């Protein structure tokens, strides 16, 4: 049994024995838990991954004449300034207001540029008051000119996380990276055995006021993070899914771009790669045992991101040892697995923190209040008005075409009914394809006569029991104007068009206005 005070005395005299979490795993394998608890004082952890829930409070100081900032833009990225006069919060995932740049330079990139010491354009709009008469500012700033620049991240360091894959026929662009169709790859995002909250899975040492490594400088744990939850199933003492999170803060002026980067997940948006390392004091054998957890003992779940709903189906379980081989098996097929977070950087962080402590430059703190290890669940957001399902839409009686039909008959159907799409079905009413007026025009130009030769056979569909929002997204994504509605047996039930959807959304908006 040791105390944090005793460990700090050893750090002071240069006698503290510090290992990274990966080294600790090997040490315990070779020497046992008892020896580890006796000899090792601190275990350092590290992680370097995309943490969307990050941002920074900035204080600009007062201009003359002074302004009460109402809309604030830094390199064209909006920072929220609805707090006092010259404070703003820049969120990592905020897009650029210039649509041409959009996702390519957002809040996270701005944070990196500030930390790099670059000059940043500041544009401010205000409405003017007696005490703050000024109505606009256009100038440039740098990090060292700001009074305060405090990184404040509501939710970092997820204890564990889902491993993403994609069962659908199309490539998905997600916050877990690009997911290839038909289980084409899997993407995971955890430093495994080096990850902070997997080394102190019951939060025995981490809590409010724990001093940490944050983006190259000293930071602190404020408390548990948003969406902190404690109910997840555990295996070998560690949760097999998301679970615990931390809220972190640190002085941006002390940070280094080696350990924090702005990034863009393709077609998803900006996110911040945050480097965090937490020292764990080895106070007793239990803690020693837990910090010795190995990749193999950390189980996680492979989840199908092809299902765009709150609960996504779990395909199988795996562990970080298996994932780190670069291949896992899904449905009997070998699939390439790659990380989204950098294990190399995670190691660098754990090493750096170890060096700080060994050299006597970093002391441990006693948390004021520990992160809770029970009693926390994450509540879903219940929408009062449930989403409209496709089957609840009013759809007109559906007009169908048959593969054997001649082109001119089909053309007549389109014209007579004043429509642009026609689902093609077989005798039992099952969907076989779709044909548009464009296909017909094309067929006539090329002298084709059979519908079977001109229809599109790979059809994008809407299912009866899907929320309309998902269909709207599909129409946007594929830039199509309409798609057939099918039931469980693939029988065509109707057609839904982009106009139907905008009409529905328009109607909802109008209804809401009446209610207000």
């Amino acid at each position, binding site marked *: 049994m040791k105390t944090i005070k005793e460990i700090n005395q050893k750090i002071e005299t240069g006698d503290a024995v510090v290992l990274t979490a990966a080294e600790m795993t090997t040490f315990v394998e070779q020497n046992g838990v008892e020896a580890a608890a006796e000899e090792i004082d601190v275990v350092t952890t590290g992680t370097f*991954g995309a943490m969307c829930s990050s941002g920074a409070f900035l204080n600009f100081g007062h201009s003359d004449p002074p302004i009460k900032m109402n809309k604030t833009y830094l390199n064209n990225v909006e920072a929220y300034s609805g707090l006092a006069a010259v404070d703003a919060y820049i969120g990592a995932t905020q897009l650029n207001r210039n649509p041409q740049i959009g996702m*390519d330079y957002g809040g996270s990139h701005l944070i990196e540029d500030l930390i790099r010491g670059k000059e940043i354009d500041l544009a401010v709009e205000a409405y003017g008051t007696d005490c703050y008469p000024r109505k606009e500012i256009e100038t440039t700033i740098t990090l060292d000119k700001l009074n305060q620049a405090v990184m404040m991240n509501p939710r970092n360091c997820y204890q564990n996380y889902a491993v993403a894959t994609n069962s659908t026929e199309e490539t998905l662009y997600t916050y877990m990276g690009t997911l290839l169709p038909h289980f084409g*790859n899997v993407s995971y995002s955890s430093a495994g055995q080096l990850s902070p909250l997997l080394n102190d899975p019951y939060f025995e040492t981490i809590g409010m006021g724990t001093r940490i490594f944050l983006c190259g400088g000293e930071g602190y744990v404020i408390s548990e993070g948003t969406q902190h939850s404690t109910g997840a199933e555990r295996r070998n003492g560690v949760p097999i899914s998301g679970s615990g999170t931390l809220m972190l803060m640190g002085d941006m002026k002390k940070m280094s771009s080696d350990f924090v980067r702005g990034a863009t997940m393709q077609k998803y948006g900006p996110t911040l790669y945050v480097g965090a390392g937490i020292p764990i004091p080895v106070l007793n054998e239990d803690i020693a045992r837990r910090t010795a957890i190995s990749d193999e003992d950390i189980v996680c779940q492979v989840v199908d991101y092809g299902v765009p709903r709150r609960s996504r189906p779990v395909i199988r379980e795996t562990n970080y040892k298996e994932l780190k081989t*670069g291949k896992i098996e899904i449905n009997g097929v070998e699939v390439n697995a*790659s990380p989204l977070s*950098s294990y*190399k950087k995670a*190691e660098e962080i754990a090493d750096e923190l170890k060096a700080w402590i060994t050299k006597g430059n970093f002391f441990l703190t006693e948390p004021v209040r520990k992160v809770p290890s029970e009693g926390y669940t994450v509540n879903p957001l219940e929408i009062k008005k449930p989403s409209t399902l496709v089957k609840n839409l009013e759809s007109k009686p559906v007009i169908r075409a048959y593969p054997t039909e001649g082109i001119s008959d089909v053309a007549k159907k389109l014209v007579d009914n004043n429509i642009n799409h026609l689902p093609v079905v077989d005798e039992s009413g099952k969907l076989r394809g779709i044909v548009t007026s464009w296909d017909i025009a094309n067929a006539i130009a090329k002298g084709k006569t059979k519908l079977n030769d001109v229809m599109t056979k790979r059809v994008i569909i809407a299912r009866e029991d899907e929320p309309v929002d998902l269909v709207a997204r599909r129409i946007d994504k594929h830039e199509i104007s309409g798609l057939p509605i099918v039931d469980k047996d693939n029988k065509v039930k109707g057609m839904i068009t982009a106009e139907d959807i905008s009409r529905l959304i328009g109607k909802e908006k109008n209804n809401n206005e009446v209610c207000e």
Partner: protein
Amino acid sequence: MKAWLKFSPDITNKSIISDTIKSYDIDFNILRANITPKGGKLLVEISGNQVDESIGYMESQGISVDPIKKVVRKEEEKCVDCGACVSLCPVKAISVSDDWTILVDDQLCIGCAFCTSSCPMKAIKITE
């Protein structure tokens, strides 16, 4: 060498490629193929002693041959060795070394650009 072969529809049915392989004794490896009624595109790797002659023959038969001189380059400054690009590469040109550094092998790359667009740091560039 790597090259894109482009054909028009009227020659898709002819056996130009097998003739080329036979007459010039080249190794002919199809890396990607995209053949439609409107013609086709093949990405191929050709090696052997008579590569230039074989290209001359294919061109004389109406295939247009565009050699690829693309270079894939990873900017080490920008790359954080996350690994997101690794599982996206269709030809395993991107690998993870023992110390978790991510390496891109220019020789294996076919220039598909999956990695460039998916890299969160925009660290990979393909240049002609």
